[in-house]
Structure formats: C-alpha cells, structure tokens
C-alpha cells in the first residue's frame, strides 16, 4: 500500500523537513525513520527504501514492546527506548500526542553524544506533533 494513501502528502513533507533539520543539527545521526505505530514509513532521513521499511517495522515493534513492558511493570506510558552498542546507539521514541500516533527510530554512530541526541530527538518529536496537529 502506498503511504500516500494513509498519510497526507503535506504531513509527510512537513515531517521530512523536520527530520532533515534534526539530522543537520545533530552530529552522529546515521539515519532516522518516522513511522506509523503499525510500522509504515511516514518520513525518512538518510534511509534507503529497503532499510527504512525494516527500521519502520522494527521501530514499531520496539515501541510496542516498550509500552507493554512498562504497562506490565505498572509504570506510566513508555517514552523512549535506548539501545547502546559498541559503535553507536539506537533510539525508539513514541509520539502519542498526535493523531495518528507515530514512532521515531534514530540510529547514531559513536560520535553522537547521547544527551544531545535525546534532547534533539525530543525537540524533533515535539515539532512533528505541532506539524501534525496544526495541519
């Protein structure tokens, strides 16, 4: 199914601009994929189609698992998942304040500062929410 059928083109374009700004302003980002919560790409940054499709699906699974585990643990809604590796980090963030709800997956290399990455990703999510809710 074409993403255009489920995500308005204007929203996808705006989200793509937000991801590009996020990528420009944040050192170390390898790729970023914004997706629906059921794993379809909405916007991508530096990700080819085959990679972005996988990242969108995996990101939505990670986000759903994060929410399931926090729910089972009696905690409030999951905000973000951080995976640190020897060569970098992966973030999965839920964006539940907008409709449709979305997930953002970010892959960064080890040159990225995790604190900066988290702060910048949070700003990116907030800008996506503003763009979606204002559109």
């Amino acid at each position: 199914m074409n993403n255009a059928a489920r995500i308005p083109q204007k929203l996808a374009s705006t989200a793509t601009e937000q991801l590009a700004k996020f990528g420009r302003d944040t050192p170390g980002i390898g790729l970023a994929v914004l997706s629906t919560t059921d794993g379809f790409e909405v916007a991508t940054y530096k990700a080819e189609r085959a990679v972005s499709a996988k990242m969108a699906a995996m990101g939505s699974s990670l986000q759903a698992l994060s929410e399931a585990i926090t729910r089972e643990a009696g905690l409030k809604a999951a905000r973000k998942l951080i995976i640190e590796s020897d060569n970098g980090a992966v973030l999965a963030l839920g964006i539940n304040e907008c409709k449709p709800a979305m997930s953002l997956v970010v892959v960064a290399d080890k040159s990225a500062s995790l604190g900066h990455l988290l702060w910048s990703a949070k700003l990116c999510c907030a800008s996506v929410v503003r763009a979606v809710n204002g559109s």
Partner: protein
Amino acid sequence: MTDMPELKLVFTGPMGAGKTTAIAAISDMAPVLTDVANSDRAAFDKDSTTVALDYGQLSLDDGTVVRLYGTPGQERFGFMRTILCRGAIGIILLLDGSRDDAISSLDDFLGGIRKLDPMPATVIGVGRCGSSDAPVLVRAKHHLQQLGLTLPMFRVDVRRREDVLLLVETLVCLLEAGAGPETMQ
C-alpha cells in the same frame, strides 16, 4: 522458575487469522498484547493489529505450563516470527478460511516453518470456513498432500476456548508421541 515441565508454543498465521483472540481465549492470565491502531485497512479491515508479540500462559491438568506466544501476521514483521520461534517446540498455524488467499497464506507460513531446524510439531486451525467439508479445507488438505505433509488440521472458532484447547492438546499429544517432523512429513 518452576519444577513443572514447560512448553513454548507459537501461534502464527496471517493478519486477521485470530492469533491474539486465540491466546486470549485460553490464557490463564490477562495476555500481554502489543496491539496498535491498524492503518492498513486495505490489507485487513480491523481496528488494531499486533506489531511485536502476544504472550499468555496456560496450565494443563498435569501441571505442564504452556507458554503461548503470538506473532504479528504481516510479512514486514517477519523478523519477530524468527525471534519468537526460537526454542518453540510446537506451532499452531491459524488461517482465515474466508479469504481468497488462504491457501497462499498456508503455503507462505508453512514455508517459513519448514525452514526451522528442527521443524517444530505443527497443527493447523482454519477459522471462518463454515462446514467441515468447506472447499477451503479440502484445498488445504490437498495442498498439504502435495507438499508431502500430514499435519493435523481443524476447523476452529478461535473465540471458543474449547476449539483453541483442541489445537493445543493435539500439539501436546503429538509431542508426547514423539511425532517430530520426520513422522509428520
């Protein structure tokens, strides 16, 4: 941890086949769900869809604890099926018999199951297919024969606990009888 024997079973099958419903029908605990809003109404017209896993648990009369895992149905979540099938000793393949692509789904999912080494014991449940001699069941049996497989197959309503228990108990019987893939092929 428990001293009682434990089994890991995986419910798999295409989107909308009833995996989440089947696990909820027999689990002793409220299942762990990872359902989200379904934005792909063209693929299947339902409100929500599983994107990571379902998890439930069932205690059999002999004390055996069965851990029930459900996979997402869509191909893009195939990586979750690979993860969830690790260590599974049995697979319940659910199909929606009302869909035109039921046999193609059977073929696709069996292809994945047969690639597992060793191939776990497998039972097939077909829902929404009407009578026990429904054409889809006949075609499915014929397809299994063509593949050289003799797998138990039942018409089921996954909302009914007894129907889903039948699938699980059949699988447990196969395992107890030592019916590995060699005897099923």
